[in-house]
C-alpha cells in the first residue's frame, strides 16, 4: 500500500471516529444513560435511567438530591403554581397536569433507595412541592468517588404552557428526567422549580434512547448527535442520541416537522451541522432561521471562542405551543415566529440569535440560573444585541393587525431601544437578586435581561470594545465547562483592564439606583463690560480699564445635574459657534456641576453624555439643551399638526357607523 493510500485511509478512518470524542470536554460529573418510551395518546413516558455521579467536592456526600421538575405541574399547590398565580408568559396556565414518579431506585450495590427518598423544599419550605427529592444513601460517597444509581420513572407531560409538554402530536420533552443537583463545598445546590427561574446542573455525558411510534420516523430531534435509528416492535422506531460535555438533555418529536439541514462553516470556528425542525407553515422562513443561527455562532464564537459541539438543532414550535419556544438546551434551541413575519421585523431572527447565544452563556459558561440569572440571560442579551446590530442593523416597531404583523416606520435600535423595559421598573429590585425573589415577573425580566444588557453595553462604551472583548474572552476561557459567578466576571474585567472596576459593578449589578443625567440650564448672553469702581492711578474711578471696557464675545453658563441615585463618570460637551467644542468629564459626584465660559464664542448647545455611553440613563430626552433664543420649533409644531390631523381622522372614524 502506497504512502498516499495509507494517508487517505487514515484520514477516512479519522472521519469515521465520532467527532465528539475528539472534543476537549471536561471530565464528567453527572452522566446519564436513559431509555424512554413515548405514548403519544396518553402523553406519558416510561423510562429507565442510570445516573453516574461523581462527588467532586472535598467532603463526603451522605445524600443525593434530585430535581423532579415535572412535578411543578402536578397541582396548584406546587411552588411554581403558587408563585406564578396560574399565569404564564402567554396567558393563563391550562388545567393540564404533569408529573414524574420514581418507581424504582437502586444504589450501586443493588440496595433499594426508594424508601430512603423524601421530598424537600429548600427554598420556601412548601410541604406540597415535589420538585426536589433527597435520598439518604446507605453510605456516604467519598470525595472523588463515583457511584451509579438506577431508576425507573414514569412521566406525564402537561399541555405545553411553560417550556415543556405536548400540543396534539407535538412533543417538547424537557426537564423530564430525575436529574441530580450540584454538590458544592457548601452543600447541595438543588433548587425547587420556580415560576421565573431556570436551571443549574453539572456537566456529563448523555446517552439517551427514545422509542416513539413509527409516524414520528425522521421527525425526532434531540440534544447531541443521532447515533442510531432502528425499528423496534411493530410500528415503533427507536432513536439514540449521544453527547458528551453537556449538562442537560432535551428532545422533541412532531410528525408535522419539515426537517432541514445546513452547515455553519467559518475559519477558526470549525464546522457545525445545523438541523431545523420547522413547521410547514413557516417554510418561507427557513433561511432566516439558518441565517440567524450562523450569525450567532460567528458573532459569539469570535468573542468567546468556538462552539465546541458538532451539531446544533433549532426547533420551531407549532401554533398554540409557542410557550415551548424561546428556550435553550445544550445543542438544541427552540425559536418561534408568526406566520406573517415581514423581513424588517426580526421575529425569528432575534429569538434565534438569543437562544443560540445561550449555547455560550448557559451551555459552556454554566452559571447558576437560579441564583445569578443575569450571568446567562443578561450577558446573552448583551451579546444578542451586538450580533443583531452587526448583522441586521435595527428592528422595527411591529403593528399587530388582527394577528397579521406589519412593520411601522419606527426603528428600534440595539441595544438601548430593545431594552427600554428596564426603565419602567428601574427601582423595583437590585439586579443581583435570586430569580425567585424578584418583586414580579416584569421586574425579573427587566433587571435580569435588560438592565444587565445595558450595564454591559455601558461598560463596553467606557472600556472600549477591544478591551471589553478581551475581558469577555478571558472570562470565557477561564470558566468554559464550569460554573462561573459574578465575582469571576468582575475578576476577569479587572484582570483584562489592569484596573479595579468593582465600583462600577457595585453601582449597577448590586444596586437598584437610577442613573439620570440632565442639562438643567444653558444660557448665553453677550458679554458686558464690568461696572463699578476701578483703580486707576491710585484712585477709584467709575470707568473700567480700557482692556475691559470693550466687552467681547459671550458669557455662557451650563448647569449639569445628576437627577438619579447613581453616579457614573460622564462626558459633558459644550458646542459653540464657529465649531468650537469644549469637552469635559464629570465624575458624577454631587448633584450638579456648573460650567462657565466668559467672553467666549456663542454657546449653541450643551450635552451630557453626547456619545451615548451611559445607556443606563433613564431619561435621555433631558441630556441636552439649547439656549432659549436658539429654540427650534419645527419638531414640536409638526408633531402638533400631526396630532390634530390624527384626532380629526379619529373623529371622522367614530362618526362613520352611526
Amino acid at each position: 500500500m502506497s504512502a498516499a493510500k495509507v494517508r487517505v485511509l487514515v484520514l477516512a478512518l479519522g472521519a469515521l471516529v465520532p467527532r465528539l470524542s475528539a472534543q476537549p470536554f471536561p471530565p464528567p460529573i453527572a452522566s446519564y444513560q436513559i431509555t424512554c418510551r413515548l405514548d403519544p395518546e396518553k402523553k406519558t413516558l416510561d423510562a429507565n435511567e442510570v445516573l453516574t455521579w461523581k462527588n467532586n467536592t472535598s467532603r463526603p456526600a451522605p445524600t443525593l438530591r434530585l430535581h423532579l421538575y415535572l412535578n411543578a405541574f402536578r397541582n396548584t399547590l406546587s411552588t411554581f403554581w403558587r408563585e406564578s398565580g396560574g399565569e404564564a408568559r402567554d396567558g393563563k396556565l391550562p388545567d393540564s397536569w404533569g408529573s414524574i414518579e420514581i418507581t424504582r431506585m437502586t444504589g450501586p450495590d443493588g440496595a433499594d433507595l426508594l424508601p430512603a427518598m423524601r421530598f424537600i423544599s429548600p427554598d420556601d419550605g412548601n410541604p406540597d412541592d415535589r420538585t426536589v427529592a433527597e435520598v439518604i444513601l446507605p453510605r456516604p460517597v467519598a470525595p472523588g468517588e463515583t457511584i451509579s444509581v438506577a431508576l425507573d420513572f414514569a412521566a406525564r407531560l402537561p399541555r405545553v404552557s411553560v417550556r415543556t409538554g405536548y400540543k396534539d402530536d407535538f412533543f417538547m420533552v424537557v426537564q423530564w428526567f430525575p436529574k441530580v443537583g450540584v454538590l458544592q463545598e457548601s452543600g447541595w445546590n438543588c433548587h425547587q422549580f420556580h415560576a421565573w427561574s431556570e436551571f443549574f446542573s453539572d456537566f456529563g455525558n448523555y446517552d439517551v434512547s427514545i422509542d416513539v411510534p413509527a409516524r414520528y420516523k425522521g421527525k425526532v430531534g434531540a440534544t447531541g448527535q443521532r447515533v442510531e435509528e432502528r425499528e423496534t416492535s411493530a410500528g415503533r422506531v427507536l432513536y439514540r442520541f449521544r453527547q458528551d460535555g453537556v449538562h442537560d438533555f432535551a428532545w422533541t418529536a412532531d410528525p408535522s416537522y419539515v426537517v432541514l439541514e445546513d452547515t455553519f462553516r467559518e475559519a477558526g470556528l470549525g464546522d457545525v451541522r445545523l438541523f431545523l425542525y420547522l413547521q410547514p407553515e413557516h417554510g418561507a422562513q427557513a433561511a432566516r432561521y439558518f441565517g440567524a443561527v450562523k450569525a450567532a455562532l460567528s458573532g459569539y464564537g469570535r468573542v468567546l471562542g468556538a462552539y465546541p459541539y458538532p451539531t446544533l438543532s433549532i426547533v420551531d414550535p407549532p401554533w398554540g405551543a409557542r410557550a415551548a419556544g424561546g428556550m435553550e438546551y445544550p445543542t438544541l434551541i427552540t425559536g418561534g415566529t408568526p406566520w406573517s413575519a415581514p423581513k424588517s421585523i426580526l421575529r425569528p431572527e432575534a429569538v434565534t440569535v438569543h437562544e443560540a447565544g445561550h449555547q455560550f452563556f448557559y451551555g459552556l459558561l454554566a452559571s447558576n440560573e437560579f441564583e445569578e440569572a443575569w450571568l446567562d440571560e443578561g450577558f446573552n442579551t448583551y451579546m444578542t444585541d451586538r450580533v443583531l446590530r452587526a448583522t441586521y442593523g435595527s428592528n422595527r416597531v411591529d403593528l399587530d393587525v388582527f394577528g397579521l404583523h406589519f412593520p411601522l416606520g419606527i426603528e428600534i435600535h440595539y441595544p438601548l431601544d430593545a431594552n427600554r423595559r428596564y426603565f419602567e421598573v428601574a427601582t423595583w429590585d437590585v439586579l443581583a437578586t435570586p430569580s425567585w425573589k424578584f418583586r414580579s415577573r416584569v421586574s425579573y425580566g427587566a433587571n435580569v435581561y435588560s438592565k444587565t444588557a445595558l450595564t454591559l453595553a455601558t461598560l463596553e462604551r467606557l472600556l472600549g470594545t477591544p478591551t471589553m472583548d478581551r475581558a469577555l474572552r478571558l472570562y470565557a476561557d477561564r470558566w468554559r465547562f464550569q460554573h462561573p459567578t459574578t465575582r469571576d466576571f468582575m475578576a476577569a474585567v479587572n484582570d483584562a483592564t489592569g484596573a479595579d472596576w468593582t465600583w462600577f459593578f457595585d453601582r449597577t449589578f448590586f444596586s437598584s439606583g437610577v442613573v439620570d443625567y440632565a442639562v438643567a440650564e444653558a444660557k448665553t448672553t453677550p458679554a458686558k463690560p464690568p461696572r463699578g469702581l476701578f483703580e486707576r492711578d491710585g484712585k477709584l474711578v467709575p470707568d473700567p480699564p480700557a482692556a475691559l471696557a470693550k466687552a467681547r464675545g459671550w458669557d455662557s453658563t451650563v448647569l449639569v445635574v445628576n437627577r438619579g441615585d447613581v453616579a457614573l463618570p460622564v462626558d459633558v460637551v459644550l458646542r459653540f459657534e464657529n465649531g468650537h467644542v469644549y469637552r469635559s468629564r464629570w465624575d458624577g459626584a454631587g448633584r450638579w456641576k456648573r460650567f462657565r465660559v466668559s467672553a467666549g464664542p456663542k454657546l449653541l448647545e450643551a450635552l451630557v453624555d453626547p456619545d451615548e455611553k451611559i445607556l443606563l440613563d433613564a431619561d435621555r430626552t433631558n441630556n441636552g439643551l439649547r439656549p432659549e433664543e436658539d429654540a427650534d420649533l419645527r419638531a414640536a409644531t409638526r408633531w402638533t399638526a400631526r396630532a390634530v390631523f390624527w384626532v380629526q381622522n379619529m373623529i371622522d372614524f367614530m362618526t362613520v357607523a352611526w
Partner: protein
Amino acid sequence: MPRALACFLRGLGKSLSKPYLAVALWLMQLLIAAVLILPIGNALHALLDRSPSGEKMVAVPDYGWWETVRRTHPDVLGNFPEFATGLLSPEGIKWSEIPGMRGVGATAFGLALLAIVLHAFALGGTLGTLREPSASLVTFGREGMRYMPAFLLFTFPAWGLAFAAYQWIYVGSGEALRLRVRELHTEQAALAVTALRLAATLVALAAIKLLADAVRTVWVARPDLPPVSRFLFGIGGAFARPLRLLGILGLYAVTTAGLYAIWLVADPSAGGEARFALVPLILTQQLFVFARLLIKIGYYAGVSEALTRAPSPEYSYVAGAAPAAEAPEAPTVP
C-alpha cells in the same frame, strides 16, 4: 352593483356641487380637534424646542423619545395607545383600559364621543340640505337643528347597537373561542377564524349603519308622514334595497380606503422638511380631511338617491317655495 355605483356617483356629484357641506363638517371636526392643539403643542414645545432630540424628531418619530415621554409623563397619554391598538388586535378592545386613560388621550376619546353627538346635528343638516334645490350654509344649520332631537334618538340606539355588536360578536366570540383557537393546527387557521369574526362584526355593523341611515334619510325625505310611518318606511326602505345600499356602503369604504392608501404611499409627513414645509404639510393634511368628508357626504347623498330621489314635499322654511313634485334640478324655462 351598477345601480349602487350610479347612486354613489350621483351622490358624489351632489356632494361636489355643495362643497360648503364638507366645509361645514370640516370646520366642526377641526374645531373639536383644536381643543387639543394647546395642550399637545405646549407639551411638545416644552420638551422639544430646546432639546437636541428635536432635530431627530422633525421627520421620523424617535422610538426612544416617545418611550421616555410616555414613561416620564404618564398624564399625557395614559394607556390610550394600548386602548387604540386593542381595536386592531384579535382579542379586541379591552374596555377596562378606559379608566387608565388620562390627559390628552382621555380628552381625545371624550372629544370623539362628543363628535358622535354633533354628528346627529351635522347629518340632519347634510340630509336636509341635500334635498333642497337652493340651499346654503344657513339651510345646513337650520336643518341640523330641526332634525337633531330626532336624530339623537336614532344615534344613541345605533351607537349602542354598534357597541353591542362589537362586544358580543367580535370580543365575545374571541373570548369564547380563545382556547379552541389555540388548539387549531396552524396559525393560518387561527387567522381565518379571526377573519370570520371580523367579517361577522362588519356585517352586523354595516346592517346597523344602513338601517340607521335609511331611517334618517326617509325621516328627512318624508316630513309629510307621521313619525312612526317615517321610521317604518325607513326600515322598509333598507329591507327593500339591501344590496344597493350595501353596494353604496362598500363603494364608500373602498373609496375612503383608497384615499388612505394614497396618503400612506405619498406620506407627505416623511423626510422632514425635504418634502413639505410646515404650512404646505398642514394644508395637505386638511385637504385630505376635506376630501374624505366630500366622499362621506357623497355616501349619504348616494343613500338618499337610492331610497328616495324625489325632493321633500315640504320646504317649510324656504320663503315662496311650494311643495314640489318635479325634480328640483329641472330648469325652469320662462
